[in-house]
Protein backbone atom coordinates (compact mmCIF):
# COMPACT_ATOMS: atom_id res chain seq x y z
CA UNK A 1 0.00 0.00 0.00
CA UNK A 2 1.38 3.36 -0.96
CA UNK A 3 1.82 5.70 1.94
CA UNK A 4 1.52 9.32 1.02
CA UNK A 5 4.14 11.62 2.42
CA UNK A 6 3.01 13.76 5.32
CA UNK A 7 2.72 17.26 4.01
CA UNK A 8 1.83 19.06 7.18
CA UNK A 9 3.19 22.57 7.12
CA UNK A 10 3.07 22.79 3.34
CA UNK A 11 -0.67 23.14 3.11
CA UNK A 12 -2.49 26.11 4.49
CA UNK A 13 -4.96 24.88 7.05
CA UNK A 14 -8.39 26.21 6.31
CA UNK A 15 -7.46 27.84 2.99
CA UNK A 16 -9.51 25.35 1.00
CA UNK A 17 -12.40 25.66 3.39
CA UNK A 18 -12.37 29.43 3.06
CA UNK A 19 -12.22 29.13 -0.72
CA UNK A 20 -15.18 26.74 -0.77
CA UNK A 21 -17.17 29.05 1.44
CA UNK A 22 -16.29 32.04 -0.75
CA UNK A 23 -17.38 30.16 -3.86
CA UNK A 24 -20.70 29.13 -2.32
CA UNK A 25 -21.46 32.64 -1.05
CA UNK A 26 -20.55 34.28 -4.38
CA UNK A 27 -22.66 31.85 -6.41
CA UNK A 28 -25.65 32.21 -4.11
CA UNK A 29 -25.33 36.00 -4.16
CA UNK A 30 -25.15 36.31 -7.94
CA UNK A 31 -27.93 33.84 -8.68
CA UNK A 32 -30.33 34.18 -5.73
CA UNK A 33 -29.63 36.96 -3.25
CA UNK A 34 -28.90 39.99 -5.47
CA UNK A 35 -31.81 39.30 -7.87
CA UNK A 36 -34.29 38.87 -5.01
CA UNK A 37 -32.95 42.02 -3.36
CA UNK A 38 -33.48 43.84 -6.66
CA UNK A 39 -37.16 42.83 -6.58
CA UNK A 40 -37.61 44.28 -3.10
CA UNK A 41 -35.74 47.45 -4.07
CA UNK A 42 -37.87 47.91 -7.19
CA UNK A 43 -41.11 47.26 -5.32
CA UNK A 44 -40.35 50.00 -2.82
CA UNK A 45 -38.61 52.34 -5.28
CA UNK A 46 -41.54 54.78 -5.19
CA UNK A 47 -42.06 54.58 -1.44
CA UNK A 48 -44.22 52.44 0.83
CA UNK A 49 -47.44 54.31 0.02
CA UNK A 50 -47.04 53.60 -3.68
CA UNK A 51 -46.23 49.97 -2.86
CA UNK A 52 -49.46 49.69 -0.89
CA UNK A 53 -51.49 51.30 -3.69
CA UNK A 54 -49.99 48.90 -6.20
CA UNK A 55 -50.76 45.73 -4.32
CA UNK A 56 -54.25 46.91 -3.42
CA UNK A 57 -55.36 47.76 -6.96
CA UNK A 58 -58.47 45.65 -7.71
CA UNK A 59 -56.89 43.38 -10.32
CA UNK A 60 -53.90 42.60 -8.08
CA UNK A 61 -56.15 41.93 -5.08
CA UNK A 62 -58.34 39.65 -7.18
CA UNK A 63 -55.30 37.71 -8.42
CA UNK A 64 -53.79 37.37 -4.95
CA UNK A 65 -57.11 36.34 -3.44
CA UNK A 66 -57.73 33.73 -6.13
CA UNK A 67 -54.21 32.35 -5.65
CA UNK A 68 -54.56 32.15 -1.88
CA UNK A 69 -58.03 30.56 -1.92
CA UNK A 70 -57.22 28.02 -4.65
CA UNK A 71 -53.93 27.11 -2.93
CA UNK A 72 -55.75 26.64 0.35
CA UNK A 73 -58.37 24.35 -1.20
CA UNK A 74 -55.62 22.43 -2.97
CA UNK A 75 -53.51 21.82 0.13
CA UNK A 76 -56.58 20.74 2.12
CA UNK A 77 -57.39 18.15 -0.54
CA UNK A 78 -53.71 17.18 -0.57
CA UNK A 79 -53.64 16.74 3.21
CA UNK A 80 -56.47 14.20 3.01
CA UNK A 81 -55.70 12.49 -0.31
CA UNK A 82 -51.92 12.54 0.19
CA UNK A 83 -52.22 10.84 3.57
CA UNK A 84 -54.71 8.35 2.17
CA UNK A 85 -52.46 7.50 -0.78
CA UNK A 86 -49.42 7.14 1.50
CA UNK A 87 -51.49 4.86 3.73
CA UNK A 88 -52.54 2.64 0.82
CA UNK A 89 -48.93 2.50 -0.47
CA UNK A 90 -47.53 1.49 2.94
CA UNK A 91 -50.22 -0.63 4.60
CA UNK A 92 -52.01 -2.18 1.64
CA UNK A 93 -50.68 -4.70 -0.83
CA UNK A 94 -51.90 -5.27 -4.35
CA UNK A 95 -50.44 -6.18 -7.74
CA UNK A 96 -48.83 -3.15 -9.41
CA UNK A 97 -48.19 -1.29 -6.16
CA UNK A 98 -44.57 -0.61 -7.11
CA UNK A 99 -45.73 1.04 -10.34
CA UNK A 100 -48.29 3.18 -8.51
CA UNK A 101 -45.55 4.20 -6.08
CA UNK A 102 -43.28 5.44 -8.87
CA UNK A 103 -46.13 7.18 -10.69
CA UNK A 104 -46.45 9.52 -7.68
CA UNK A 105 -43.20 11.24 -8.73
CA UNK A 106 -44.51 11.90 -12.24
CA UNK A 107 -45.63 15.49 -11.52
CA UNK A 108 -42.08 16.31 -10.36
CA UNK A 109 -40.56 14.83 -13.50
CA UNK A 110 -43.05 16.06 -16.10
CA UNK A 111 -42.46 19.62 -17.37
CA UNK A 112 -45.26 21.89 -16.18
CA UNK A 113 -46.23 22.99 -19.68
CA UNK A 114 -46.72 19.34 -20.63
CA UNK A 115 -48.89 18.92 -17.53
CA UNK A 116 -50.96 21.91 -18.63
CA UNK A 117 -51.43 20.54 -22.14
CA UNK A 118 -52.21 17.08 -20.82
CA UNK A 119 -54.88 18.30 -18.39
CA UNK A 120 -56.35 20.48 -21.11
CA UNK A 121 -56.88 17.38 -23.26
CA UNK A 122 -59.03 15.70 -20.63
CA UNK A 123 -60.66 18.64 -18.88
CA UNK A 124 -60.66 21.15 -21.73
CA UNK A 125 -63.40 22.03 -24.19
CA UNK A 126 -62.44 19.28 -26.64
CA UNK A 127 -62.66 16.69 -23.88
CA UNK A 128 -64.25 13.41 -24.93
CA UNK A 129 -65.79 13.30 -21.46
CA UNK A 130 -67.76 16.43 -22.22
CA UNK A 131 -66.16 18.32 -19.32
CA UNK A 132 -65.71 21.95 -20.21
CA UNK A 133 -63.52 23.00 -17.34
CA UNK A 134 -60.91 24.99 -19.26
CA UNK A 135 -60.72 28.66 -18.32
CA UNK A 136 -62.58 28.09 -15.05
CA UNK A 137 -61.44 28.17 -11.43
CA UNK A 138 -62.04 24.44 -11.32
CA UNK A 139 -59.27 24.09 -13.94
CA UNK A 140 -56.92 26.16 -11.77
CA UNK A 141 -57.53 23.78 -8.87
CA UNK A 142 -57.08 20.64 -11.00
CA UNK A 143 -53.76 21.95 -12.38
CA UNK A 144 -52.51 22.83 -8.89
CA UNK A 145 -53.58 19.42 -7.56
CA UNK A 146 -51.55 17.80 -10.34
CA UNK A 147 -48.28 19.61 -9.63
CA UNK A 148 -48.52 19.37 -5.82
CA UNK A 149 -49.54 15.70 -5.61
CA UNK A 150 -46.17 14.25 -4.45
CA UNK A 151 -45.47 16.62 -1.53
CA UNK A 152 -47.76 15.20 1.18
CA UNK A 153 -47.46 11.59 -0.04
CA UNK A 154 -43.66 11.71 0.05
CA UNK A 155 -43.60 13.47 3.44
CA UNK A 156 -46.02 11.03 5.11
CA UNK A 157 -44.73 7.77 3.60
CA UNK A 158 -41.46 7.50 5.60
CA UNK A 159 -43.27 8.36 8.86
CA UNK A 160 -45.83 5.67 8.22
CA UNK A 161 -43.09 3.15 7.42
CA UNK A 162 -41.25 3.82 10.67
CA UNK A 163 -44.41 3.88 12.79
CA UNK A 164 -44.29 1.28 15.56
CA UNK A 165 -47.19 -1.15 14.97
CA UNK A 166 -47.03 -2.33 18.61
CA UNK A 167 -48.79 0.83 19.74
CA UNK A 168 -51.72 0.03 17.45
CA UNK A 169 -51.89 -3.57 18.64
CA UNK A 170 -51.79 -2.41 22.24
CA UNK A 171 -54.63 0.04 21.65
CA UNK A 172 -56.62 -2.62 19.83
CA UNK A 173 -56.20 -5.15 22.61
CA UNK A 174 -57.35 -2.51 25.06
CA UNK A 175 -60.54 -2.25 23.06
CA UNK A 176 -60.01 0.87 20.94
CA UNK A 177 -61.93 0.91 17.66
CA UNK A 178 -60.33 1.60 14.25
CA UNK A 179 -61.36 5.22 14.13
CA UNK A 180 -60.05 5.84 17.62
CA UNK A 181 -56.73 4.14 16.88
CA UNK A 182 -56.35 6.33 13.82
CA UNK A 183 -57.21 9.65 15.47
CA UNK A 184 -55.41 8.99 18.77
CA UNK A 185 -52.30 7.06 17.68
CA UNK A 186 -51.64 7.15 13.95
CA UNK A 187 -52.68 10.70 13.06
CA UNK A 188 -50.62 12.46 15.79
CA UNK A 189 -47.52 10.61 14.56
CA UNK A 190 -48.16 11.61 10.95
CA UNK A 191 -48.95 15.26 11.64
CA UNK A 192 -45.40 16.64 11.25
CA UNK A 193 -45.18 14.99 7.83
CA UNK A 194 -48.61 16.20 6.77
CA UNK A 195 -47.80 19.74 7.92
CA UNK A 196 -44.42 19.81 6.14
CA UNK A 197 -45.95 18.41 2.95
CA UNK A 198 -48.81 20.88 3.10
CA UNK A 199 -46.45 23.85 3.59
CA UNK A 200 -44.25 22.82 0.64
CA UNK A 201 -47.32 22.21 -1.52
CA UNK A 202 -48.72 25.59 -0.50
CA UNK A 203 -45.49 27.39 -1.44
CA UNK A 204 -45.49 25.59 -4.78
CA UNK A 205 -49.16 26.33 -5.46
CA UNK A 206 -48.76 30.03 -4.66
CA UNK A 207 -46.09 30.46 -7.32
CA UNK A 208 -47.20 27.97 -9.98
CA UNK A 209 -47.20 29.30 -13.52
CA UNK A 210 -46.43 26.73 -16.21
CA UNK A 211 -49.17 24.26 -15.35
CA UNK A 212 -51.80 27.03 -15.32
CA UNK A 213 -50.86 29.05 -18.34
CA UNK A 214 -52.71 27.00 -20.98
CA UNK A 215 -55.62 25.67 -18.97
CA UNK A 216 -56.66 28.62 -16.80
CA UNK A 217 -57.31 31.03 -19.65
CA UNK A 218 -55.83 33.85 -17.52
CA UNK A 219 -59.07 35.84 -17.39
CA UNK A 220 -58.53 38.87 -15.08
CA UNK A 221 -60.75 38.86 -11.97
CA UNK A 222 -61.78 35.28 -12.75
CA UNK A 223 -58.98 32.83 -13.41
CA UNK A 224 -55.88 35.04 -13.32
CA UNK A 225 -53.55 33.85 -10.54
CA UNK A 226 -50.78 36.01 -9.04
CA UNK A 227 -47.93 34.63 -11.15
CA UNK A 228 -49.89 35.20 -14.37
CA UNK A 229 -50.76 38.72 -13.22
CA UNK A 230 -47.05 39.40 -12.62
CA UNK A 231 -46.19 38.15 -16.11
CA UNK A 232 -48.86 40.44 -17.54
CA UNK A 233 -47.42 43.41 -15.66
CA UNK A 234 -43.92 42.63 -16.95
CA UNK A 235 -45.20 42.43 -20.51
CA UNK A 236 -47.01 45.76 -20.24
CA UNK A 237 -43.87 47.31 -18.76
CA UNK A 238 -45.41 47.83 -15.30
CA UNK A 239 -42.24 46.59 -13.63
CA UNK A 240 -42.91 48.28 -10.27
CA UNK A 241 -46.35 46.66 -10.08
CA UNK A 242 -44.87 43.29 -11.02
CA UNK A 243 -42.18 43.65 -8.33
CA UNK A 244 -44.70 44.72 -5.67
CA UNK A 245 -46.94 41.69 -6.16
CA UNK A 246 -43.80 39.52 -6.33
CA UNK A 247 -42.81 40.77 -2.88
CA UNK A 248 -46.20 39.71 -1.50
CA UNK A 249 -45.72 36.21 -2.95
CA UNK A 250 -42.14 36.09 -1.68
CA UNK A 251 -43.16 36.94 1.87
CA UNK A 252 -45.82 34.21 1.86
CA UNK A 253 -43.43 31.60 0.46
CA UNK A 254 -40.69 32.50 2.92
CA UNK A 255 -43.15 32.05 5.80
CA UNK A 256 -43.94 28.59 4.43
CA UNK A 257 -40.24 27.67 4.31
CA UNK A 258 -39.68 28.95 7.83
CA UNK A 259 -42.67 26.89 8.94
CA UNK A 260 -41.22 23.73 7.35
CA UNK A 261 -37.90 24.36 9.11
CA UNK A 262 -39.66 24.76 12.44
CA UNK A 263 -41.56 21.50 11.97
CA UNK A 264 -38.36 19.67 11.09
CA UNK A 265 -36.59 21.00 14.17
CA UNK A 266 -39.62 20.07 16.26
CA UNK A 267 -39.67 16.58 14.71
CA UNK A 268 -35.99 16.08 15.59
CA UNK A 269 -36.37 17.35 19.15
CA UNK A 270 -36.15 13.85 20.64
CA UNK A 271 -33.07 12.90 18.60
CA UNK A 272 -30.71 15.24 20.38
Amino acid sequence: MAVSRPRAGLRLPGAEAAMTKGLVVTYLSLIVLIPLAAIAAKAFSAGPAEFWDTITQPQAIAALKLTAICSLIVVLINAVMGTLIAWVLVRDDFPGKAIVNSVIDLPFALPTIVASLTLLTLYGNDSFLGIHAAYTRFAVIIALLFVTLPFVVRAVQPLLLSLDRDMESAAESLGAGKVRIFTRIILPNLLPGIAAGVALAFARALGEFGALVLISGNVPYKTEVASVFIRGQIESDQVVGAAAVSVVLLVFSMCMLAFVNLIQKWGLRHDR
Partner: protein
Amino acid sequence: MTGNGRLSRYGLRFVALSYLSALLLLPIGVALVKTFDQGVGEVITQITKPDAIHALKMSLLTVIIAVPLNTVFGIAAAHVVVRTDFRFKWAINALIDMPFAVSPVVIGLALILVYGTGGWFGADLAAMGIQVIFSTPGIVMAVIFVSLPFVAREVIPVMQEIGTDQETAAETLGAGPWQTFRRITLPAIRWGVTYGIVLTTARALGEFGAVTVVSGNISGETQTLPLYVSQQFETFNSVGAYSASLVLAILALGTLLSMNLLRRREETND
Protein backbone atom coordinates in the same frame (compact mmCIF):
# COMPACT_ATOMS: atom_id res chain seq x y z
CA MET B 1 -59.41 -9.95 8.89
CA THR B 2 -63.03 -9.08 9.56
CA GLY B 3 -65.41 -8.39 6.71
CA ASN B 4 -65.60 -4.78 7.83
CA GLY B 5 -61.79 -4.42 7.76
CA ARG B 6 -61.56 -5.83 4.27
CA LEU B 7 -64.30 -3.49 3.09
CA SER B 8 -62.53 -0.41 4.41
CA ARG B 9 -59.23 -1.62 2.94
CA TYR B 10 -60.72 -2.07 -0.51
CA GLY B 11 -62.54 1.22 -0.10
CA LEU B 12 -59.35 3.15 0.63
CA ARG B 13 -57.51 1.40 -2.20
CA PHE B 14 -60.34 2.25 -4.58
CA VAL B 15 -60.37 5.94 -3.57
CA ALA B 16 -56.56 6.27 -3.85
CA LEU B 17 -56.36 4.58 -7.24
CA SER B 18 -59.35 6.48 -8.66
CA TYR B 19 -57.85 9.79 -7.57
CA LEU B 20 -54.49 8.97 -9.16
CA SER B 21 -56.21 7.80 -12.34
CA ALA B 22 -58.36 10.89 -12.71
CA LEU B 23 -55.50 13.26 -11.95
CA LEU B 24 -52.51 11.57 -13.60
CA LEU B 25 -53.09 8.48 -15.69
CA LEU B 26 -56.26 9.35 -17.56
CA PRO B 27 -55.08 12.80 -18.75
CA ILE B 28 -51.72 11.41 -19.82
CA GLY B 29 -53.34 8.48 -21.60
CA VAL B 30 -55.80 10.72 -23.44
CA ALA B 31 -53.03 13.16 -24.41
CA LEU B 32 -50.97 10.27 -25.76
CA VAL B 33 -53.87 9.08 -27.93
CA LYS B 34 -54.41 12.64 -29.14
CA THR B 35 -50.71 12.97 -30.05
CA PHE B 36 -50.99 10.08 -32.50
CA ASP B 37 -54.37 11.22 -33.89
CA GLN B 38 -52.91 11.86 -37.32
CA GLY B 39 -50.46 8.99 -37.34
CA VAL B 40 -46.86 8.40 -36.34
CA GLY B 41 -45.58 10.05 -39.54
CA GLU B 42 -47.09 13.40 -38.61
CA VAL B 43 -45.50 13.28 -35.16
CA ILE B 44 -42.09 12.62 -36.71
CA THR B 45 -42.60 15.45 -39.22
CA GLN B 46 -43.48 17.80 -36.36
CA ILE B 47 -40.54 16.96 -34.12
CA THR B 48 -38.02 17.15 -36.95
CA LYS B 49 -39.04 20.69 -37.93
CA PRO B 50 -36.00 23.00 -37.72
CA ASP B 51 -37.52 25.14 -34.95
CA ALA B 52 -38.37 22.07 -32.86
CA ILE B 53 -34.86 20.65 -33.28
CA HIS B 54 -33.38 24.04 -32.42
CA ALA B 55 -35.54 24.25 -29.29
CA LEU B 56 -34.46 20.77 -28.23
CA LYS B 57 -30.80 21.71 -28.75
CA MET B 58 -31.33 24.88 -26.74
CA SER B 59 -32.86 22.88 -23.89
CA LEU B 60 -29.98 20.40 -23.94
CA LEU B 61 -27.46 23.25 -23.98
CA THR B 62 -28.96 24.79 -20.84
CA VAL B 63 -28.88 21.38 -19.16
CA ILE B 64 -25.24 20.83 -20.13
CA ILE B 65 -24.24 24.17 -18.56
CA ALA B 66 -26.61 24.34 -15.57
CA VAL B 67 -26.35 20.79 -14.27
CA PRO B 68 -22.53 20.60 -13.81
CA LEU B 69 -22.45 24.08 -12.25
CA ASN B 70 -25.23 23.24 -9.80
CA THR B 71 -23.61 19.89 -9.02
CA VAL B 72 -20.29 21.48 -8.05
CA PHE B 73 -22.15 24.19 -6.16
CA GLY B 74 -24.40 21.66 -4.44
CA ILE B 75 -21.51 19.57 -3.16
CA ALA B 76 -19.58 22.66 -2.02
CA ALA B 77 -22.68 24.11 -0.34
CA ALA B 78 -23.40 20.81 1.42
CA HIS B 79 -19.82 20.80 2.67
CA VAL B 80 -20.13 24.35 3.98
CA VAL B 81 -23.49 23.68 5.64
CA VAL B 82 -22.54 20.36 7.24
CA ARG B 83 -18.82 20.63 7.95
CA THR B 84 -18.30 24.25 8.95
CA ASP B 85 -19.86 26.49 11.51
CA PHE B 86 -20.12 30.25 11.32
CA ARG B 87 -22.48 33.03 12.16
CA PHE B 88 -24.50 33.37 9.00
CA LYS B 89 -24.87 29.70 8.18
CA TRP B 90 -28.64 29.91 8.63
CA ALA B 91 -28.72 32.52 5.84
CA ILE B 92 -26.84 30.19 3.48
CA ASN B 93 -29.26 27.43 4.37
CA ALA B 94 -32.28 29.63 3.74
CA LEU B 95 -30.91 30.95 0.43
CA ILE B 96 -30.33 27.41 -0.85
CA ASP B 97 -34.03 26.66 -0.26
CA MET B 98 -35.32 29.90 -1.80
CA PRO B 99 -35.72 28.63 -5.37
CA PHE B 100 -38.22 26.03 -4.08
CA ALA B 101 -40.40 28.80 -2.70
CA VAL B 102 -40.14 31.52 -5.33
CA SER B 103 -42.51 31.60 -8.28
CA PRO B 104 -40.69 31.00 -11.58
CA VAL B 105 -42.12 34.26 -12.94
CA VAL B 106 -40.67 36.15 -9.98
CA ILE B 107 -37.30 34.51 -10.65
CA GLY B 108 -37.44 35.75 -14.24
CA LEU B 109 -38.33 39.27 -13.14
CA ALA B 110 -35.54 39.26 -10.54
CA LEU B 111 -32.97 38.37 -13.18
CA ILE B 112 -34.26 41.11 -15.50
CA LEU B 113 -33.97 43.70 -12.72
CA VAL B 114 -30.30 42.83 -12.18
CA TYR B 115 -28.98 41.73 -15.55
CA GLY B 116 -31.39 43.39 -18.03
CA THR B 117 -31.00 46.74 -19.73
CA GLY B 118 -31.65 49.31 -17.04
CA GLY B 119 -30.91 46.66 -14.42
CA TRP B 120 -28.28 46.96 -11.69
CA PHE B 121 -25.49 45.34 -13.71
CA GLY B 122 -27.17 45.75 -17.11
CA ALA B 123 -25.28 48.84 -18.30
CA ASP B 124 -21.86 47.46 -17.30
CA LEU B 125 -22.57 44.13 -18.95
CA ALA B 126 -23.77 45.91 -22.11
CA ALA B 127 -20.55 47.98 -22.14
CA MET B 128 -18.64 44.71 -22.12
CA GLY B 129 -20.78 43.52 -25.01
CA ILE B 130 -22.56 40.87 -22.98
CA GLN B 131 -26.30 40.50 -23.38
CA VAL B 132 -27.85 38.36 -20.67
CA ILE B 133 -31.58 38.98 -20.88
CA PHE B 134 -33.39 37.94 -24.10
CA SER B 135 -30.36 35.81 -24.81
CA THR B 136 -28.83 32.45 -23.95
CA PRO B 137 -26.99 33.50 -20.74
CA GLY B 138 -30.27 34.71 -19.24
CA ILE B 139 -31.99 31.41 -20.01
CA VAL B 140 -29.09 29.50 -18.50
CA MET B 141 -29.16 31.69 -15.37
CA ALA B 142 -32.92 31.18 -14.98
CA VAL B 143 -32.47 27.43 -15.27
CA ILE B 144 -29.58 27.50 -12.77
CA PHE B 145 -31.75 29.45 -10.32
CA VAL B 146 -34.74 27.10 -10.42
CA SER B 147 -32.69 23.90 -10.23
CA LEU B 148 -30.14 25.13 -7.68
CA PRO B 149 -31.26 23.36 -4.46
CA PHE B 150 -31.57 19.74 -5.62
CA VAL B 151 -27.97 18.47 -5.34
CA ALA B 152 -27.32 20.34 -2.08
CA ARG B 153 -30.58 19.08 -0.53
CA GLU B 154 -29.82 15.46 -1.50
CA VAL B 155 -26.18 15.57 -0.34
CA ILE B 156 -26.62 17.42 2.99
CA PRO B 157 -28.42 14.57 4.85
CA VAL B 158 -25.96 11.99 3.47
CA MET B 159 -22.99 14.07 4.63
CA GLN B 160 -24.56 14.44 8.07
CA GLU B 161 -25.11 10.69 8.17
CA ILE B 162 -21.53 9.63 7.29
CA GLY B 163 -19.92 11.81 9.97
CA THR B 164 -16.29 12.89 9.99
CA ASP B 165 -14.44 9.84 11.36
CA GLN B 166 -13.12 8.58 8.05
CA GLU B 167 -12.23 12.06 6.81
CA THR B 168 -10.30 12.79 10.00
CA ALA B 169 -8.53 9.45 9.75
CA ALA B 170 -7.47 10.18 6.17
CA GLU B 171 -6.18 13.60 7.18
CA THR B 172 -4.26 12.16 10.12
CA LEU B 173 -2.61 9.77 7.67
CA GLY B 174 -1.45 12.76 5.68
CA ALA B 175 -4.03 13.10 2.92
CA GLY B 176 -4.64 16.62 1.65
CA PRO B 177 -8.16 18.08 1.55
CA TRP B 178 -8.60 17.33 -2.12
CA GLN B 179 -7.35 13.78 -1.73
CA THR B 180 -9.63 13.22 1.27
CA PHE B 181 -12.56 14.56 -0.69
CA ARG B 182 -11.87 12.42 -3.75
CA ARG B 183 -11.07 9.18 -1.94
CA ILE B 184 -13.34 9.34 1.10
CA THR B 185 -16.15 11.90 0.86
CA LEU B 186 -17.12 11.59 -2.81
CA PRO B 187 -17.54 7.78 -2.80
CA ALA B 188 -19.71 8.05 0.31
CA ILE B 189 -22.04 10.70 -1.11
CA ARG B 190 -22.15 9.43 -4.70
CA TRP B 191 -25.76 8.18 -4.65
CA GLY B 192 -26.99 11.40 -3.13
CA VAL B 193 -25.12 13.35 -5.80
CA THR B 194 -26.49 11.15 -8.59
CA TYR B 195 -30.06 11.46 -7.33
CA GLY B 196 -29.58 15.22 -7.08
CA ILE B 197 -28.27 15.37 -10.64
CA VAL B 198 -31.30 13.47 -11.94
CA LEU B 199 -33.68 15.88 -10.20
CA THR B 200 -31.69 18.90 -11.41
CA THR B 201 -31.80 17.64 -14.99
CA ALA B 202 -35.56 17.04 -14.85
CA ARG B 203 -36.22 20.51 -13.50
CA ALA B 204 -33.79 22.16 -15.93
CA LEU B 205 -35.35 20.47 -18.96
CA GLY B 206 -38.89 21.36 -17.98
CA GLU B 207 -38.51 24.92 -16.71
CA PHE B 208 -41.03 27.20 -18.33
CA GLY B 209 -42.05 30.24 -16.27
CA ALA B 210 -38.65 31.76 -15.52
CA VAL B 211 -37.37 31.07 -19.02
CA THR B 212 -40.50 32.62 -20.58
CA VAL B 213 -39.84 35.89 -18.80
CA VAL B 214 -36.10 36.20 -19.56
CA SER B 215 -35.92 34.65 -23.01
CA GLY B 216 -37.99 36.92 -25.20
CA ASN B 217 -39.23 33.65 -26.72
CA ILE B 218 -37.72 34.21 -30.17
CA SER B 219 -38.41 31.06 -32.17
CA GLY B 220 -35.33 29.48 -33.69
CA GLU B 221 -33.17 31.51 -31.31
CA THR B 222 -33.97 31.76 -27.62
CA GLN B 223 -36.68 29.14 -27.50
CA THR B 224 -36.37 26.06 -25.32
CA LEU B 225 -38.55 23.00 -25.87
CA PRO B 226 -41.18 23.90 -23.23
CA LEU B 227 -41.50 27.38 -24.79
CA TYR B 228 -41.84 25.76 -28.21
CA VAL B 229 -44.73 23.64 -26.89
CA SER B 230 -46.64 26.67 -25.65
CA GLN B 231 -45.96 28.67 -28.81
CA GLN B 232 -47.16 25.83 -31.04
CA PHE B 233 -50.31 25.54 -28.96
CA GLU B 234 -50.97 29.25 -29.08
CA THR B 235 -50.53 29.32 -32.86
CA PHE B 236 -53.10 26.53 -33.16
CA ASN B 237 -50.65 23.83 -34.24
CA SER B 238 -51.80 21.42 -31.58
CA VAL B 239 -50.18 18.41 -33.26
CA GLY B 240 -46.85 20.22 -33.03
CA ALA B 241 -47.47 21.04 -29.37
CA TYR B 242 -48.41 17.45 -28.53
CA SER B 243 -45.46 16.02 -30.48
CA ALA B 244 -42.91 18.26 -28.73
CA SER B 245 -44.61 17.41 -25.42
CA LEU B 246 -44.09 13.75 -26.22
CA VAL B 247 -40.34 14.36 -26.50
CA LEU B 248 -40.36 16.14 -23.14
CA ALA B 249 -42.52 13.41 -21.60
CA ILE B 250 -40.14 10.69 -22.80
CA LEU B 251 -37.21 12.58 -21.24
CA ALA B 252 -39.25 12.92 -18.03
CA LEU B 253 -40.05 9.22 -18.06
CA GLY B 254 -36.35 8.44 -18.39
CA THR B 255 -35.74 10.65 -15.38
CA LEU B 256 -38.47 8.90 -13.41
CA LEU B 257 -37.04 5.48 -14.25
CA SER B 258 -33.55 6.44 -13.16
CA MET B 259 -34.99 7.94 -9.95
CA ASN B 260 -36.57 4.58 -9.19
CA LEU B 261 -33.49 2.57 -10.06
CA LEU B 262 -31.41 4.80 -7.81
CA ARG B 263 -33.87 4.52 -4.96
CA ARG B 264 -33.87 0.73 -5.21
CA ARG B 265 -30.09 0.69 -5.36
CA GLU B 266 -29.87 2.89 -2.27
CA GLU B 267 -32.23 0.57 -0.40
CA THR B 268 -30.26 -2.57 -1.31
CA ASN B 269 -27.01 -0.86 -0.31
CA ASP B 270 -28.25 0.02 3.13
